[in-house]
């Protein structure tokens, strides 16, 4: 795992437990410092509904922090025939984040995408997701961005699942 770009920062099984724990503890920790680790738990929370729908979660995760308005590109190999969901999270209250999927030529190829804000009385934080059924096997770009945030740099985490 790397600081600005980290994979395998935490193992999903452990993260899931932590996520579950945070579901109980978050209201008790309103002043907890935002971290990439916490953001990954949000990303895992977001992808959970797809796992329940039969997608397989990958161990590889990404995380880092970004200033508002700056995008980051992640290169990723996708296979025609598979369905993918990428979910991003941050625990920064009032933030808005996004993840979008482009092919190797820079064309937007996602099937669906969404951005959501967690209600403040539920602890705040934000999520984003994007799905793709690649028409070709090859290299794709995931563009992650912090659209809005009160923080100078906003931590984020990204996970993916396939079926």
């Amino acid at each position, binding site marked *: *795992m790397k600081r600005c770009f980290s*994979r*395998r920062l935490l*193992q*999903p*099984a452990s*993260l*899931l*437990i*932590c996520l*579950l*724990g945070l*579901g109980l503890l978050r209201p008790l920790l309103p002043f907890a410092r935002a*971290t990439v*680790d*916490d953001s990954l738990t949000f990303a895992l*929370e*977001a992808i*959970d*509904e797809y796992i329940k729908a039969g997608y*397989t979660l*990958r*161990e*590889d995760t990404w995380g880092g922090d970004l200033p508002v308005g700056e995008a*980051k*590109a*992640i*290169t*990723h*190999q996708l*296979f*025609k*025939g*598979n369905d993918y969901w990428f979910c991003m999270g941050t625990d920064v209250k009032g933030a*808005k984040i*996004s993840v979008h999927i*482009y092919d*190797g030529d*820079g*064309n*937007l190829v996602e099937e669906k*995408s*969404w*951005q*959501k*804000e*967690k*209600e403040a009385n*539920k602890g705040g934080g*934000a*999520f984003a997701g994007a799905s793709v059924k690649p028409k*070709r*096997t*090859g*290299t794709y*770009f995931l*563009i992650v961005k912090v*659209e809005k945030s009160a923080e100078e740099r906003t931590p984020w985490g990204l996970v993916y699942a*396939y*079926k």
Partner: protein
Amino acid sequence: MKLLLNMPVFSRPSLAFVTALSLLCVAPVRAETKDIGGNPPQKIDVSKLRTQVEDVVIPVPSEVFKALDKLGTPPWASEVRVNEKGSTPSVRTHLSLLFGTVVADGFLAVQAKDADKVKKIGRRVLELATALGVRSNVISHTQSIIEAADKGDWNEVRTELDKTQGEVKSAMEQLKDRDYSELVSIGGWLRGTEALTSIVRKDYNADRAELLHQPDLLLTFDRQLNSMNDRTRRDALVAKLQSGLAEIRPLIANADADINKDTVERINGITSDLVRAISPMSATSTP
């Protein structure tokens, strides 16, 4: 939080425990959120993406196997092999490569839905993890692999195989053995590609062959091998590996051209040769 995550007691929760806690404490994301969607640009200039994130993620073999499954009914059973009595190398470089190939064999056994072979491979994974000095990191996952195989819960086996590989790679990275971690991925990719090409060449069509179009992965492997320490790079097997991968790279580089049957045959020949060098089959191996 890190302390909490590092506590061994949380390393392998039972499914029932996780499910119960999920029901108790996690409301679905959509129930507590409001949509704040935006409109992304339809086209971006990829040449201006300067802040790219390190190397491309190496997919686990099951990602490509699942895609192949949707293009017909591959004869997975004929591709699965179990090298129960195979020798265990003493050199960590070779062990790491072998570990990756055996995990890939596990993913193949899952595709074939062969519980017996999955369990044998799970035990072999544990043997190799022990030789690598990371037994404690994977023992719970290998146990889960065996339990899930007994139940025929193939998605769970896939997840646990991925976790097993992830744990080993993490443990190696924590020990500053990044080279070995990368060799695990390369070993897995080679075995997965050997199986993929073996299936595609027996029943060729362009859609199936297109799954081999992975040029950035080959570039990533080349970068990784070039940046390994001198001792690792001087290893004869690693040198052979680098040479074989360099041979494959131009064969799959052109995104606009179909990968023809001859090319599939060539890639199969190269990957088979490399996998044999990493993992010589013993007389008792079961193909």
